[in-house]
């Protein structure tokens, strides 16, 4: 009685402690839902940071249509006023920033042609060009003549602005938005930057809901109003809501199925309550561990972690059935349970070695959760239940016996033949069908409506910059600009070859300080020349004073400044980095080799980079898995003998190949997540094999394994219906693997018995 109270008190204290910790920590944590953020990024952290902080990830676009131009303008203005928390990116701001930049750039920038003419002292040409600009009906930039009477900076800006003009396509800038017509229907295009991380679902979901609500309210005023939107926010929120819905839906269904199963088997509330307490404690421990070790828990990690229910219930069934058989049987069951826990923990611990945050979180959750479930079974079950206090449903026992008896029919030769043929056939089918894909784009299925919105927005706003860019690195800002300039001939060559339509580099806007100084010197010489003197005299202006305040990155418009990046001091991180934005680029190996020769520039494609890293992880996981299986088989061989170990090997092969063949037969390519599923199939199949190879009665083992397998299949089988392809593939693999494993595992006992008899 005293021991019972002590154990329950300890359990209660731990539960309270964990709950207190979670209630303190959870409100401070930001849940992430980015599937790509969960994948391995670049080797260098600074590259991953750069992608994460790239402003394009925080931008949203909204097209309003269905109304007259005047009404659209009114709706757009209202919407902007209602959302001051968004940083609206307006043509007006662009204009103001450009004007400020023009002012500072006067006399410090020139086109390449003008620079050459200046260097060649072709002053008359420069003066003629200036006259042309002065006398043309075009408006002049404000206050330019005092600093740059030859108007070299105005010509340079016109050239630089050509890229901007292409961006705006057929759109007309208004003060706060762009406007245009699509299929003769007017629309306005609003552009904003979020102050929050779109993957931070705690902040992104309410913001998203508020934006949509405001649009619906506006639609009540203007029933004809329609809108399209684009931006990572919408995808991130959709992914988060899908993950949350799946987590609660599949978790709830699994729990319901388990409750029904327990009621059917034991027809009592006590085991049900004990199982629920076990699962609850395991989940609590898992959550505490994840929150303890990770700053941003990932929602998808918890979708994978619903599988805890399947594995933890396995322990619960073994404990419930063993307690009924008395303390002696319970003690005989414990080594098997411990060995099973150990093999499962080792399998999950392997996930910790992978550079994938999401899988690391799954591993931590499962390690803590399963250990908690194991401790509950070991210590709480013997004091919570009395021997023979529960009656196991006769139908459940009959089912278990039937399966065991089915395999008893086979003699030694037939049993080996069955395993051999099964293993050979499944392996051959696997080798015939096998194909892998590491493309991270296929890991997540875009919502069709959002995809449609994105495509329509692309039609409205014209071609945007590519999702890949060039990275130029240097030790100092000045060197960075010099290096960008060195890269320009290569970019021009690619443009001529049709490999690149356009680009935007910081150095197009900001010459190096030495170049600015040189230009100033040359201009002063030009002003002192006879042509220069005559030009200034005709114009009626004095010789401009030499400029000593140079143009720096701080003077650049925001949209150019965003291309400059200073990585956090880290091993291997360069001091300064700039992004060169590319449009319609199709760079091949030859071009990448040219970049590589330069030594300071590289093409960076976040998607390709992540895919390559996923391929690397898959390769590592394959090797790790194969090594773990070989080690496990060697250990089993040492413990059980060669023939039983060989039987277990064939059993594992059948389970694993069958699990993967189902996905292949469904036309799917295998991904890293199928392999993660295999890892769990191996862990669970070894678990079953260990119990069937133990000295426990086959019918008792079959009952516990069968019940736990059914619950696991219910839990994993649900994931097969997930909208996220990688989760669905994971679910299919484990569902099939467990089914095959639980059906064929009794053959291990049969072979073991026959081999023992044979000896």
């Amino acid at each position, binding site marked *: 009685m005293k021991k019972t109270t002590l154990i329950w008190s300890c359990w209660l204290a731990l539960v309270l402690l964990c709950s207190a910790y979670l209630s303190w920590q959870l409100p401070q944590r930001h849940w992430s839902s980015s599937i790509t953020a969960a994948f391995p990024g670049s080797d260098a952290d600074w590259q991953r940071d750069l992608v994460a902080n790239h402003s394009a990830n925080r931008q949203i676009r909204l097209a309003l249509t269905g109304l007259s131009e005047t009404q659209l303008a009114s709706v757009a203005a209202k919407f902007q006023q209602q959302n001051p928390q968004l940083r609206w990116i307006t043509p007006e701001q662009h204009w103001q920033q450009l004007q400020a930049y023009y002012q500072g750039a006067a006399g410090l920038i020139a086109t390449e042609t003008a620079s050459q003419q200046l260097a060649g002292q072709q002053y008359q040409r420069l003066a003629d060009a200036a006259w042309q600009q002065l006398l043309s*009906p075009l408006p002049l930039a404000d*206050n330019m003549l005092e600093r740059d009477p030859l108007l070299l900076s105005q010509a340079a800006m016109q050239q630089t602005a050509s890229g901007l003009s292409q961006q705006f396509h057929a759109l007309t800038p208004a003060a706060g938005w762009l406007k245009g017509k699509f299929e003769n229907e007017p629309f306005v295009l609003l552009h904003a930057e979020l102050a929050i991380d779109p993957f931070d679902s705690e902040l992104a979901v309410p913001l998203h809901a508020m934006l949509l609500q405001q649009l619906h309210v506006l639609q009540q005023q203007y029933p004809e109003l329609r809108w399209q939107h684009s931006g990572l926010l919408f995808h991130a929120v959709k992914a988060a809501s899908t993950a949350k819905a799946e987590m609660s839906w599949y978790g709830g269904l699994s729990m319901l199925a388990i409750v029904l199963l327990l009621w059917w088997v034991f027809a009592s509330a006590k085991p049900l309550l004990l199982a629920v307490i076990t699962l609850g404690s395991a989940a609590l421990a898992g959550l505490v561990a994840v929150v303890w070790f990770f700053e941003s828990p990932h929602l998808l990690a918890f979708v994978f972690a619903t599988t805890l229910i399947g594995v933890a219930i396995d322990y619960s069934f073994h404990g419930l059935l063993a307690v009924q058989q008395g303390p002696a049987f319970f003690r005989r069951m414990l080594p098997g349970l411990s060995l099973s826990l150990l093999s499962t923990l080792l399998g999950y611990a392997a996930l910790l070695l992978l550079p994938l945050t999401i899988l690391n979180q799954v591993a931590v959750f499962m390690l803590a959760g399963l250990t908690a479930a194991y401790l509950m079974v070991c210590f709480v079950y013997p004091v919570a239940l009395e021997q023979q206090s529960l009656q196991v449903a006769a139908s459940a026992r009959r089912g278990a016996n039937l399966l065991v008896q089915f395999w008893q029919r086979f003699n030694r030769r037939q049993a080996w033949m069955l395993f051999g043929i099964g293993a050979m056939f499944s392996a051959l089918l696997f080798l015939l069908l096998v194909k892998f894909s590491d493309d991270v784009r296929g890991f997540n299925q875009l919502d069709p409506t959002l995809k449609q919105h994105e495509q329509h927005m692309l039609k409205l706003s014209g071609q945007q910059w590519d999702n890949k860019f060039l990275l130029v690195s240097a030790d100092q800002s000045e060197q960075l600009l010099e290096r960008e300039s060195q890269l320009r001939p290569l970019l021009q060559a690619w443009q001529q070859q049709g490999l690149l339509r356009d680009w935007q580099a910081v150095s197009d806007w900001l010459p190096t300080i030495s170049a600015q100084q040189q230009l100033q010197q040359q201009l002063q010489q030009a002003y002192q020349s006879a042509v220069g003197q005559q030009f200034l005299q005709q114009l009626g202006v004095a010789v401009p004073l030499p400029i000593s305040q140079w143009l720096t990155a701080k003077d650049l418009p925001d949209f150019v400044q965003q291309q400059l990046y200073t990585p956090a001091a880290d091993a291997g991180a360069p001091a300064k980095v700039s992004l060169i934005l590319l449009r319609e680029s199709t760079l091949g190996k030859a071009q990448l080799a040219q970049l590589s020769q330069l030594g300071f520039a590289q093409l960076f494609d976040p998607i390709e980079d992540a895919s390559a890293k996923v391929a690397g992880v898959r390769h590592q996981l394959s090797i790790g898995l194969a090594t773990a299986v070989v080690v496990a088989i060697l250990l089993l061989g040492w413990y059980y003998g060669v023939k039983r170990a060989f039987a277990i090997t064939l059993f594992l092969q059948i389970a694993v190949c069958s699990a993967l063949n189902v996905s292949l037969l469904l036309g799917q390519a295998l991904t890293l997540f199928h392999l993660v599923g295999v890892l769990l199939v191996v862990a669970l199949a070894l678990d079953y094999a260990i119990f069937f190879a133990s000295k426990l009665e086959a019918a008792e083992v079959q009952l516990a394994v069968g019940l736990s397998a059914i619950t696991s299949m219910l839990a994993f089988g649900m994931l097969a219906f997930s909208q996220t392809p990688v989760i669905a593939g994971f679910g299919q693999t484990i569902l099939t693997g467990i089914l095959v494993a639980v059906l064929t595992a009794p053959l291990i006992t049969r072979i073991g018995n026959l081999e023992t008899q044979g000896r």
Partner: protein
Amino acid sequence: MNWRLGFLLWVLASASAAAAAPVSDKAQTPQATALQQMASWQLPQGKLLFTQQKWIRGLKRPLKSQGYLQLSPQSLDWVTEQPVQSAVRLDKQGVQQQLAGTFQLQAGTELIGHLMLAVLQQDQAFLQQYFSLQPVQSSAGQAPSGQEQTGQCVQLVPLQAPLTNFYRHIVLCGEGSLSRIELIELAGNRSEILLTAAPDSAKTAL
């Protein structure tokens, strides 16, 4: 009898006055009046001579230039002959500067190019879309050129960006045809362009 004749004459006279002086009609908006006034100008065609004076902020005296405009349905060639030879082509695509014998389109000038073409072609749809129009008194006596101005004027105030970023307003004046364009830039610069028909307007090409 006399009163009937008198009434008839009064009605006829009123109708004629209304037709001849729509500005005085209180029912008509300033925009409509301005459009009507512009519509009364004969559309310029072919070649027009121009003289331009441009007051640029920071310059003590105006820049004077002269040359001709060659107007076609799709484009306007602005050819400066004095004090330097230069040519600019304006159309709906933008402004193209003649450099080394070829026209090169200047980025971001679509609306400015279209604007000048619309002003000379009196493209009322374009002008109404981008400007608020109102009739104004002729700035006779105040003209920087010192020339006496005649005829009615219409002031165009830009309504939206990017034109609002460039122009404070534009004034078009003329009697029978457009004869003066005044461009008041936001930067403080001002251009006055006086137009006259060229003797050989139909024959000249760029």
